[in-house]
């Protein structure tokens, strides 16, 4: 069955450093991969989408890569700030036409001042 793994449950870094989060998947060849941010008590908020034919996508301080050979996506936050502290979820689109998302368990990022 399709499986998504976000290797680190938690990641602690110092303010100003680059945070790198990893998402691996198996038994699947997705056409798209999405990243979401979730704050405590809130729903996930969409950040970035990357297509299988795109190696890299950027949005302000965020960068996502997609390696279909390694079956892996990396999510980077440069010049991290305490306000970036949250749980980050990667998601792949499941089978079928309605775009059901299959989520990883998330990585809780803490940025210390």
């Amino acid at each position: 069955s399709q499986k998504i793994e976000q290797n680190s449950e938690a990641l602690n870094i110092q303010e100003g450093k680059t945070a790198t989060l990893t998402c691996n998947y198996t038994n699947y060849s997705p056409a798209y991969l999405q990243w979401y941010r979730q704050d405590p008590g809130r729903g996930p908020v969409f950040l970035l989408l990357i297509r299988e034919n795109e190696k890299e996508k950027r949005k302000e301080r965020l960068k996502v890569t997609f390696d279909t050979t390694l079956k892996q996506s990396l999510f980077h936050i440069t010049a991290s700030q305490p306000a970036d502290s949250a749980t980050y979820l990667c998601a792949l689109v499941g089978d079928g036409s309605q775009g059901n998302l299959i989520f990883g368990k998330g990585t809780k990022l803490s940025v210390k001042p």
Partner: protein
Amino acid sequence: DTAVSQTPKYLVTQMGNDKSIKCEQNLGHDTMYWYKQDSKKFLKIMFSYNNKELIINETVPNRFSPKSPDKAHLNLHINSLELGDSAVYFCASGTGGGHQPQHFGDGTRLSIL
């Protein structure tokens, strides 16, 4: 204006009761979803629905039933609540397909006593 809104935010009830959670979206999307986030923070699809098709995750008990009075609403009815139903339930909407983001509500935290 809130794009995807759910009510109630908290729901505490006894085992065996029947309850409903309401969801409304004002984004004009054709597809709506229900996800369940368990105590381990794992977010899993339960249903997806557009005006033509309901897709049910096979692992969802038939005590759970979505009902859509119109395109902007997808309510979740739960019969004979069990202890294992305690979780946070998220409603989301989108245009369908994996190439577009989904927009999530802030969740309904259901606690079964």
